[in-house]
C-alpha cells in the first residue's frame, strides 16, 4: 500500500502573509501520496494541536508534514502530537515556509513554499520509524584523582544519591594539599573526614586505572591497586587528576639555574615560600624578595593568586621589600582584584616588564634587571630570595587516561573539553567528564563550579537508572560493511567499535548510547554501509530531486 501523507499548512496566526495558502493547498494536494492537506492558523496552539490529533485519527496517514515555522522550535511539539495520535514521532518532517521563505522573499513566495513542501514530502515518504528502548545503566560513578576536585566531586555525587568510587594514584587522599591547605585555599581535612564517614564512597589508593571500555551507563573499568586487579562497571567516569607545577627554568648567562643541578637554595617555588612563611622555619628573614610571574606561560591564574598571597604575607609577616616582575597581573579569578589592591596597599612593588627579566648571581645575592614599561628605564633589584615562575603541567598518566577514553589533549597536554562555552566539563565521549585542574588553569572557586555542573550532568544521565535510546538510528549494514575501520577512526564520539555479529563476521557496531548522530561516518564510509535513519542518502537525495520539480 502506498504511503499516505498528511500535510498541515499553518499561517502562523497570520504571521505568514505573502503566501497564497489556498493555491498552495491546491498544488500540494496533487503531489502523489499526499492524501490530505489542512489549513490552520496556529497549529502549535492547544486548539491547533487538538485539531491536528483528531485529523490524524480520522485520516490515518502514515506520515505527516507540517509547513510553517522553523522546526528548531516546533519539531518536538509536533512529534509529540504525532505520538499522541498514535504515530511515531519519526514520521514527521517540517517545511520551513516561514523563516526560510515567507519572511525572506518577495517574488514568487507561494511557488517556493510549494517547493519546500515537496521537499519535505519526498523526505517524509522515505522515513522509517525506529524502536526506542530503555537501556539499564549502572548508577555508580568512578572519580579518578585524589585532590580537591576529586574529593569534592565524590562528595557532591554521593549527596545526590549516586555511589562513587575514588581511585587515586597517591598513597592517601589529599596528599598534594596536605599541610598547605590554605595555600590551595581548600579545607581538605574536613572533606577527607566527610569521605571517611560516607558509606556511599569507596576509596581506592594507591590505585591506577589500567583499562576502560564501553559507553555512558556501561563502562567496564579495570583498576589496579597494589597488584590486585579490580574490575567494575560504572555508569560515568569523572577525570579529576589535577595539575602539577614546574619551576620555569631561569638562566644566568645561558646557564640554567633552576631546574638544573646546583640550583641556588635562595631560588624557591611558591609552595616552598608558603611553607617558610607558614612555619617560620627560615633562620634569617629575607630582606628583599622578588617574584617572577607570567614571563613564559600565559596560563597564570593559579600562579598569580599564589604570588599575591605570598607577597602580602611576606610584607606583613617579615616586613621584606617585595617586588613582582610580571607582564600583567591577571585578576579574573574570584577575589584576585581585591588581593592585588591589598598587595599594592601594603607596599608590594609591581614591575611591569615586556620581556623576561635578566638575572645575575653574585656571592649568593641575586640581581634582577628588567625594563620597566612605565618608567621606560631599566630597573635593577638585588634580592636575597627569588620566587621562580611556575608553569602548570598535566600530571603523569594524563596521556594514558586520554588514550584509554579516547579523548583529546590540548596543546599543553591538558584534557581538551568538548566545547568550552557549552559543555566545559564534558567530552565528546558521552559519560566521561573532567573537572578542575586537569582541564587547565583553574582556581578553587572555578573548580567548585565544575564540581556542581558535573554532578548535575551525571545526575541527568544516571539518576533514572535507564538511558532511553533509539535503536539502530545509525547502523552499519552487516552485508556491506567490510570492516575497513574508517568510521571507527573518524567517529568524534568514540561510539563505534569492531565487533563480531551473529554470523561471526567482524563489522563496525555503533553504540546507540554513545552515538550523537552527526553522520560523519555515513558520509565517509567507502562501502556505503552506514545507514543513518533520517539522513540516509536516499532521504537527502530525494529532497534534491524534489527541488524545482513542477
Amino acid at each position, binding site marked *: 500500500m502506498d504511503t499516505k501523507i498528511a500535510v498541515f499548512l499553518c499561517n502562523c496566526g497570520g504571521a505568514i502573509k505573502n503566501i497564497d495558502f489556498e493555491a498552495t493547498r491546491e498544488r500540494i494536494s496533487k503531489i502523489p501520496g499526499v492524501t490530505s492537506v489542512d489549513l490552520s492558523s496556529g497549529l502549535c496552539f492547544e486548539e491547533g494541536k487538538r485539531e491536528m490529533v483528531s485529523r490524524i485519527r480520522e485520516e490515518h496517514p502514515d506520515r505527516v508534514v507540517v509547513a510553517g515555522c522553523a522546526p528548531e522550535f516546533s519539531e518536538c511539539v509536533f512529534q509529540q502530537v504525532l505520538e499522541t495520535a498514535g504515530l511515531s514521532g519519526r514520521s514527521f518532517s517540517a517545511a520551513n515556509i516561514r523563516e526560510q521563505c515567507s519572511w525572506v522573499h518577495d517574488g514568487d513566495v507561494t511557488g517556493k513554499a510549494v517547493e519546500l513542501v515537496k521537499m519535505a514530502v519526498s523526505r517524509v515518504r522515505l522515513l522509517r520509524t525506529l524502536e526506542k528502548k530503555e537501556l539499564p545503566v549502572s548508577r555508580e560513578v568512578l572519580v579518578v584523582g585524589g585532590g580537591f576536585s576529586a574529593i569534592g566531586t565524590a562528595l557532591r555525587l554521593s549527596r545526590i544519591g549516586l555511589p562513587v568510587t575514588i581511585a587515586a594514584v597517591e598513597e592517601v587522599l589529599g596528599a598534594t594539599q596536605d599541610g598547605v591547605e590554605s595555600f590551595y585555599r581548600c579545607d581538605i581535612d574536613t572533606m577527607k573526614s566527610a569521605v571517611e564517614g560516607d558509606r556511599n564512597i569507596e576509596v581506592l589508593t594507591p590505585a591506577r586505572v589500567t583499562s576502560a571500555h564501553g559507553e555512558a551507563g556501561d563502562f567496564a573499568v579495570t583498576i589496579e591497586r597494589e597488584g590486585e586487579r579490580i574490575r567494575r562497571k560504572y555508569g560515568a567516569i569523572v577525570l579529576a587528576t589535577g595539575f602539577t607545577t614546574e619551576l620555569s627554568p631561569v638562566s644566568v648567562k645561558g646557564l640554567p639555574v633552576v631546574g638544573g643541578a646546583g640550583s641556588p637554595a635562595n631560588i624557591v617555588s611558591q609552595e616552598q615560600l608558603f611553607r617558610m612563611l607558614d612555619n617560620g622555619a627560615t633562620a634569617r628573614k629575607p630582606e628583599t624578595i622578588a617574584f617572577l610571574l607570567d614571563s613564559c606561560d600565559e596560563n597564570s591564574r593559579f600562579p598569580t593568586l599564589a604570588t599575591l598571597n605570598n607577597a602580602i604575607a611576606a610584607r606583613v609577616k617579615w616586613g621584606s621589600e617585595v617586588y613582582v616582575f610580571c607582564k600583567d597581573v591577571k585578576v579574573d579569578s574570584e577575589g584576585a582584584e581585591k588581593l592585588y589592591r591589598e598587595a599594592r596597599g601594603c607596599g608590594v612593588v609591581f614591575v611591569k616588564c615586556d620581556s623576561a627579566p635578566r638575572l645575575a648571581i653574585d656571592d649568593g645575592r641575586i640581581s634582577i634587571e628588567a625594563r620597566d614599561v612605565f618608567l621606560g628605564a631599566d630597573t635593577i633589584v638585588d634580592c636575597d630570595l627569588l620566587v621562580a615562575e611556575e608553569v602548570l603541567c598535566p600530571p603523569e598518566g594524563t596521556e594514558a587516561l586520554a588514550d584509554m577514553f579516547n579523548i583529546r589533549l590540548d596543546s599543553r597536554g591538558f584534557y581538551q573539553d568538548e566545547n568550552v562555552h557549552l559543555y566545559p566539563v564534558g567530552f565528546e565521549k558521552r559519560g566521561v567528564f573532567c573537572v578542575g585542574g586537569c582541564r587547565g588553569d583553574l582556581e578553587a572557586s572555578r573548580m567548585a563550579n565544575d564540581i556542581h555542573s558535573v554532578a548535575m550532568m551525571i545526575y541527568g544521565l544516571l539518576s533514572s537508572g535507564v538511558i532511553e535510546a533509539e535503536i539502530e538510528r545509525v547502523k552499519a549494514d552487516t552485508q556491506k560493511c*567490510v570492516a575497513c575501520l574508517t568510521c571507527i577512526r573518524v567517529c568524534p564520539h568514540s561510539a563505534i567499535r569492531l565487533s563480531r555479529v551473529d554470523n561471526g563476521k567482524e563489522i563496525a557496531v555503533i553504540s546507540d548510547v554513545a552515538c550523537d548522530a552527526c553522520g560523519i561516518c555515513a558520509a565517509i564510509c*567507502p*562501502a556505503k554501509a552506514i545507514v543513518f535513519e533520517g539522513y540516509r542518502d536516499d532521504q537527502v537525495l530525494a529532497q534534491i530531486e524534489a527541488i524545482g520539480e513542477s
Partner: protein
Amino acid sequence: MIIAERKPMEEIEESVAEYKKVLVAGCGTCVTVCWAGGEKEVGILASQLRLARGAAGNEIVTLETTVERQCEKEMVTEIKDKVAEADAVLSLACGSGVQTMAELFDDKPVLPAVNTTFIGMPEREGLWVEMCGACGDCFLDRTGGVCPMVRCAKGLLNGPCGGTRKGGMCEIDPDKDCAWVLVHRRLEKQGRLDLMREYVTPKNFRAVRRPGKVQAAKA
C-alpha cells in the same frame, strides 16, 4: 591489503570516450578499504562522468555495481546481465579484478579506473603505506619485521645507504623513515642486533617466477 588509487579523470574519460553506456564496477574488498573503488567511489565516478559528458553535450548512461571480490569469477558472474547491457565496463578493482572481469567478459572492453599501487597498510585514516613487495622470499625474520625491499628507497639488503638524513629519515624523502634505521631500532629493542650484522646474500629473484603461481597443498 592491496592499495590502489583512482586514475586521473582525464585518463578515465579518454578510455570511455567512445562508449555511450558504461558499467562502473567497484570491488568490495581491498579497494573499498583503501577508498579507491568501493560503492562510494563508484557513485562519485559515475556522477562525475555524467556531469563531464553532459557538459560536453555527449551524454553517457552509467550503470553502477559493486562486486564483493572482483578477482573471483563466481562473484563477477553474478553481474553478467549488467555487463551485457553496457558498451564497456569501467572497473575500479585492482589489476587482478580488472583482468578477472576482462577474462570472463572477453567480448567487452574492461577498462581500469584505478592504478594498483602496492601491498600496504593504513598508517592512519586515509593514508596507506607500502609494506610488502610480494618478492616470494620473505626474510622479515632477519630484519625485525621491517621489509627493506620496499621500505628502503633503494631496496638495500645489508644496511642503510650513506644518505640517511638526521633523525633517521630517508635521503629521497624527509617524511619517510629510513627502513634500515627502523630495522636497527627494532632489533636493538629485541637485543638481536647480531642479525643485522650478518651478511645478506643477493636476493633470490627467482622465488616468484613471472607469472607467479601458487598451488596449495591438496586437501
